[in-house]
């Protein structure tokens, strides 16, 4: 699976304003709503489901990266968005470091394989320090999308 298969291009956000976990999740889910990817009436329910998943254990998996996610019956296909916080946010990460780079995933309950392959793609690509560093430094949605496209075209070692 490639980023292009699940990242909603119109929802990518380079400058997150929130400074806490719930705020970040709300802001990113809002970007999916604003992009027309999720129905307005499901916004709160999706946010709550993602927050509930975080209670189980932070999705801040270290190296300044978090992948908040949930299954949700309102989506028909895997939806993802990417966002950057230049300041970094305390996300209760596994390594205790602040998180600057976020991948948020909402997947249909009956498609666990897609979710798994998206996680595989994200973690495989982010093992590349250069890709990771450039994404964290991205200042515009165009920067982020270009980096994702380059990764899809295997322009980073992985």
């Amino acid at each position: 699976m490639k980023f292009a298969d699940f990242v909603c291009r119109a929802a990518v956000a380079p400058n997150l304003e929130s400074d806490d976990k719930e705020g970040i999740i709300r802001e990113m889910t809002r970007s999916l709503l604003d992009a027309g990817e999720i129905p307005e009436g499901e916004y709160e329910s999706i946010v709550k489901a993602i927050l509930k998943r975080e209670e189980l254990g932070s999705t801040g998996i270290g190296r300044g990266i978090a992948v908040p996610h949930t299954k949700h019956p309102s989506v028909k296909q895997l939806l993802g968005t990417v966002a950057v916080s230049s300041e970094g946010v305390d996300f209760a990460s596994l390594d205790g470091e602040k998180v600057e780079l976020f991948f948020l995933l909402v997947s249909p309950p009956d498609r666990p394989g897609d979710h798994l392959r998206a996680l595989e793609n994200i973690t495989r690509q982010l093992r590349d320090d250069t890709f990771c560093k450039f994404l964290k430094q991205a200042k515009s949605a165009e920067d982020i999308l270009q980096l994702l496209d380059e990764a899809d075209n295997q322009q980073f070692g992985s």
Partner: protein
Amino acid sequence: MPRMPTMNVKQSVAHVVMRDPLGMHMRPAQLFSELATTFTSEIVVRCDTVKVDGKSIFEVLALAAECGAVITIEAKGDDADQATAALVELVENNFPEPTPVKDNKADGDTTG
């Protein structure tokens, strides 16, 4: 020049089938890598053609091991046997959560 130790390094290999219907998603990968880290042995995990460091959640997620996939756990070091036994048990028992710290444990409505 110091003499190199010649003692044999202990090795242990085990195979186990992924039973979690969602495969090796984030929560299992976290529990797996955290348990692996408690051992001093070097731990390598394979699934199909992918071979990763079992102590890194990034690497374990990159296995993308689906339900039904066979994963191979290879440990090398003093506690190799204990490491493979513990990790196999974790996978076979379908990644039980550690002792809960909350009263309202999350239900099955999450993708982990």
